[in-house]
């Protein structure tokens, strides 16, 4: 029995070719597909019809958490749990708590951003059908690919292949799942 199909992969030689092909695949109504590029190609998100990333929202939550952590930590430690007078200053004031809260805002935002990015991308994923393609190394170098997954409702081996060919794709290969 033949292995299950993951999808079709087509090769493109340059960014304009990829860009226009992506527009065609998008317009054909595909949802589960992707472009493989060695670097972020500017404008490709719109050509693929991708929405703006939601990473900033996760970062915002991280930042607010960090700021509150700083303020609460300092209030709790110096103004509540063990009240300590130093230099006649108040037990708690947002003024002297600010520098630490500021740094913690940044620290928590950084972690939220990176963890959020990894979760949204589904990484780490060390084993992926695309990585088994023997030409994939070139996708990290100077070649561009479009992968249409078989789980897409519109996927049809012959029709999808025809679409990718029409869009200018070369070496259209079936990927094993």
């Amino acid at each position, binding site marked *: 029995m033949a292995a299950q199909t993951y999808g079709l992969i087509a090769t493109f030689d340059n960014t304009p070719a990829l860009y226009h092909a992506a527009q*065609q695949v998008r317009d054909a109504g595909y949802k589960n597909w992707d472009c493989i590029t060695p670097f972020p190609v500017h404008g490709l998100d719109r050509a693929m019809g991708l929405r703006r990333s939601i990473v900033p929202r996760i970062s915002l939550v991280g930042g607010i958490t960090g700021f509150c952590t700083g303020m609460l930590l300092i209030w709790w430690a110096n103004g509540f749990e063990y009240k300590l007078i130093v230099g006649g200053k108040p037990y708690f004031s947002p003024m002297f708590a600010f520098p630490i809260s500021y*740094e913690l805002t940044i620290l928590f935002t950084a972690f939220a*951003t990176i963890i959020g990015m990894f979760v949204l991308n589904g990484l780490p994923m060390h084993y992926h059908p695309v990585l088994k393609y023997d030409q994939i190394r070139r996708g990290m170098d100077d070649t561009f690919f479009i992968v249409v997954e078989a789980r897409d409702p519109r996927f049809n081996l012959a029709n999808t292949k025809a679409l990718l060919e029409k869009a200018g794709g070369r070496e259209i290969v079936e990927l094993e799942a």
Partner: protein
Amino acid sequence: MAHVEQTAPPAILREVKPAILPRAELVEHGRSFTWITEKICGIVEGQTPTWWWWCFAVACFVASFTFAGITYLVATGVGVWGHRNPVNWGWPIVNFVFWIGIGHAGTLISAILCLLRQKWRTSINRSAEAMTIFAVVCAGIFPVFHVGRVWYAWFLFPIPNSNAIWQNFRSPLEWDVFAVSTYGTVSVLFWYVGMIPDLAVLRDRFQEKGRRVRSFCYGLFAMGWRGSNRHWSNYEMAYLILAGIATPLVLSVHTVVSFDFAVALIPGWHTTIFPPYFVAGAIFSGFGMVLTLMLPLRSIYRLEDLITQYHIDCMCKITLATGTMVGYAYAMEFFIAWYGANPFEGFTFINRAFGPYAWAYWIMISCNVITPQFFWFKSVRRNTTMVWVLSLFVNVGMWFERFVIICTSLTRDFLPSSWGYLSPTVVDIFTFFGTFGLFSVLFLLFIRFLPLMAIAELKVVTPQADVHGPHGTPEHATGFGDPVEVEQGGPSPKH
């Protein structure tokens, strides 16, 4: 389907016909994507060069001075450092502020220039970030050992001690702990995230060569990156946010470091100019160090097409600008000391320039104020050797700046009965000297094992990366260069 919004340039642009300003090429000689990959990966993949082994051996030897100094210190006590009343903040804090300052250019190049869309950052950001991290490592040694009983260094972290007393969060020294540890952490994260796509490149290349151990190691950290555009979309956003938060971070770190001084009442320290002045100085010294490191690398690895004359020009100009700012701060300190009519403040500054530490003061002035002024001249900026030598002076000058600030104020404070003079001991000198070795060891390991430049980012700035053909076409030169916005009339085929 109208997914692509057609945004026409403002009508005014059609009327005024703005001049097309040629942009300097960021990758010269029209190098291809493959050339860039081969060039950067080649450094990691090739045989370890002989010079590397020599440098590594020397660096290890020098680094051993720090380890010896610290071992002796821990075994004996902080008395082996030259700290005596009234100077209880001597070399270690000078060295700490110096190394933290060195780190700042790395974050500045990566973060601030990224936000300002200065594309010339791409070829130097990776190594500048590495420099930042290694500088923070060197910096961290000093305050940690300066506390004396280093095994109690955890007292600095927000954990109550055995009497259930918490840290004093009103103290700028405690703020410093948070600022520097956040800075170190965020710098490492920023560096690592930027490296993920390049690690994937190395993973695939080593796999193809059949070198499974290295492929596995790079692959582990590449997290299974496969260049998916859906990933790039989130990745770029995350990178932009990291740049956005690293920018206030880098400015705040040296501001907080300056608070250690500015919050004290010692004449010469108690000034509001310290935060901006320290930040400018940090960027100045950081760029000095970037130039010191990048120019030799450029010629050893023949990276002239990637670190072009334009890059060197830009770095020299930033050094010039920040050096001039530092010079302004020196002048302003003097002015305020006179204008503020505080006799102690006035005395401190006269004493700085003409007192027992006048030699250090004038070294500082000549290295920090006079040296960068040479960068006004194009002929100097074009002379790589000269730029390198001047950058060395910048590094020296900035160390002396911290020395002057700390020592001249502490040795001559309010009461002549408590005056003194700080002389470093051999342990002081060895420990500091050794950190240059430690820094070099780490940097040499970096250039040997990790991609020296951001491969993916370098490809983005080449003309062929643009989906609408090379830059320099009129659409791009008007500043409305987003490829999607020039959909009509671009050199690409219509669809």
